[in-house]
């Protein structure tokens, strides 16, 4: 399933990806707490368990590439380099948020990072990604578009329409299906006659493979290979990233649809545990290294919370701004 030998190329490589995954985990755990304190409201979908996907994929993409994500996109935004302060302030609904408090958890945007959201309609990001890739192709840009979506999206017509269009026009788009096995509470095999998502993509003549989404190095290697092929003119690609959501779908989910034992089994092969164990076993990380990375992640989250707490609210007088584009200042 994985590229043989996918692993850390150096101590620095290993520690860097671990640090990125730890900061996402710390951020999400703090979000969980802040939701209980009612600092964060609305819908909140946490990324615990899936960190290797965003971190591995973003490392393999270029700064000029366009990214389209879903409503469970804190990890993607952070891994892409959207400042944690701006993400946390957005969850607080503050003016300093990356969407000026108008988007919230499900609609994080940062055009400077070419991060195009943050889409809360399942599969609705795929057609937009196809269009971004069409622009890249027509403008002869050396960039590609990466589009994240979940396993639930493959049941939507927009998934099929988009894969067909991307393949028909040989567009530089990489579809990244985060298969965490449940569309909210409905298991993939209860909704799909064909559960092999890569096979569906091949039906549209799209190069596709399944990857262990719990292994950050496997993700990074697979995305790197796929992105290189797409950049070289191969047309679109799809990767099915097998992963698992450790927390509930949202904050309103009692998780009646899955066994605790199943969750525990997946947690044992969680991306942070396996990575930590591996780096130690390969002599690339000491316990001190880990503590340092963990402390740095906590400190960054603390600072982001302080920033969000102190950030100003958007004036109500500006309620109707940005319904239409404003002339550049």
């Amino acid at each position, binding site marked *: 399933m994985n590229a043989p030998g996918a692993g850390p190329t150096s101590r620095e490589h290993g520690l860097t990806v671990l640090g990125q995954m730890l900061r996402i985990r710390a951020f999400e755990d703090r979000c969980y707490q802040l939701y209980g304190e009612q600092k964060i409201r609305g819908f909140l979908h946490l990324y615990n368990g899936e960190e290797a996907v965003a971190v591995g994929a973003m490392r393999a993409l270029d700064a000029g590439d*366009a990214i389209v994500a879903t409503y469970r996109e804190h990890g993607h935004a952070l891994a892409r380099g959207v400042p944690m302060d701006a993400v946390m302030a957005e969850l607080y609904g503050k003016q300093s*948020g*990356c*969407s*000026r*408090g*108008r*988007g919230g958890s499900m*609609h994080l*945007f*940062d*055009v400077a990072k070419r991060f*195009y*959201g*943050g*889409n809360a*309609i399942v599969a*609705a990001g*795929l*057609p*937009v*990604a*196809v*269009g*971004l*890739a*069409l*622009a*890249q192709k*027509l*403008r*002869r840009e050396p960039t590609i*578009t990466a589009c994240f979506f979940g396993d639930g999206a493959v049941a939507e*017509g*927009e998934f099929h*329409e*988009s894969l*067909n*269009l991307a393949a*028909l026009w040989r567009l530089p788009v990489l579809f990244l299906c985060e298969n965490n096995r449940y569309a909210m509470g409905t298991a993939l095999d209860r909704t799909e006659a064909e559960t092999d998502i890569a096979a569906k993509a091949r039906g549209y003549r799209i190069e596709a493979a399944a990857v262990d989404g719990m292994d950050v190095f496997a993700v990074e290697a697979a995305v790197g290979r796929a992105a290189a092929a797409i950049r070289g003119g191969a047309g679109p690609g799809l990767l099915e990233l097998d992963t698992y959501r450790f927390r509930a779908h949202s904050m309103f989910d009692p998780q009646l649809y899955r066994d605790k034992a199943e969750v525990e089994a997946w947690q044992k092969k969680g991306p942070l545990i396996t990575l930590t164990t591996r780096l130690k076993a390969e002599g690339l990380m000491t316990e001190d290294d880990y503590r340092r990375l963990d402390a740095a992640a906590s400190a960054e989250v603390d600072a982001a919370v302080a920033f969000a707490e102190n950030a100003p609210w958007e004036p109500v007088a500006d309620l109707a*701004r*940005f*319904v*239409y*584009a*404003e002339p550049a200042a």
Partner: protein
Amino acid sequence: MIASVRPEPGATPSTRPAAVRQSYRDAVRESLRDALRADPRVFLMGEDVGRYGGSYAVSKGLIEEFGPERIRDTPLSESAFVGAGIGAALGGLRPIVEIMTVNFSLLALDQIMNNAASYCHMSGGQLAVPLVIRLATGAGRQLAAQHSHSLEGWYAHIPGLRIAVPATIDDARFMLAAALACSDPVLLFEHAALYNREGDLTPGLTAVDIDHAAVRRPGRDATVITYGGSLPKCLDAAASLAAEGIDVEVLDLRTLRPLDEAAIVASVRHTSRAVIVDEGWRSGSLAAEVTTRIVEQVFYDLDAPVARVCTAEVPIPYAKHLEDAALPSPARIVDAVRRVVGRDGDG
């Protein structure tokens, strides 16, 4: 810039002078040709816009002139190609997406509403979606319930969209350029019954806006407020009424969002009577919105209750006599105006 998709300069020179009299269809085609020539970022995509020449022959000949990269035939995947238009707009192009008819736009409603209309606001102003969607709309050709919708008023409900409705040759010719110059998603509704109509292009006119209503016929006894495919019916009704000594002002809304409330108010204040003619269904219609604006703004200037001529609240039937009975007609407009001016034969 995408200089590489620019057509060969002078590849297909148009040497004939612009005809003063032309059809609505030709006017729209010329507007497309102008846009494609003026800006290499502009391209057209949709079902059968290329080799077929457009379902209504609007884009006929354009693929020969501009090539398949810029006149792009799509699969029957409304959601995907409208979404692709949104993405291409985000990516720096100026797409024109043709949805063959407004009826099919329902298959792309998610993209239009949840993405195109929402991106600017929910990104805190970071994203602009300079996308133009052209749609044929309207009834009157015995196409029955699934090919006869007038959903402009529906779309006008949605903040973040601009809704423009060319009803005249001038607007058919120049609204597209105004829409493309705008950084927001613009839906251009072309009533299918207008494509064959001919008219004179105003000499010297080179541009129009998509912000203001226009008085198409000045009058003093009553204001008939309309847009799109109903405009010719209103002008016909006004001509009949003039023979009876009733002088009707016809206001063409031109844009349904933003609605030119100032023009509505000014005209109704001038005439003190209003009839709204809207091919949409009456309940929850654009006509209802215009009525409310009048009641809110000029209630004390009214000399009669506002009247509406809308489509009967049925899915459009196939049989001609039933379809005719369902739609606004000059006769129904005449009746409504007579009522509001107190000349309905009863008094």
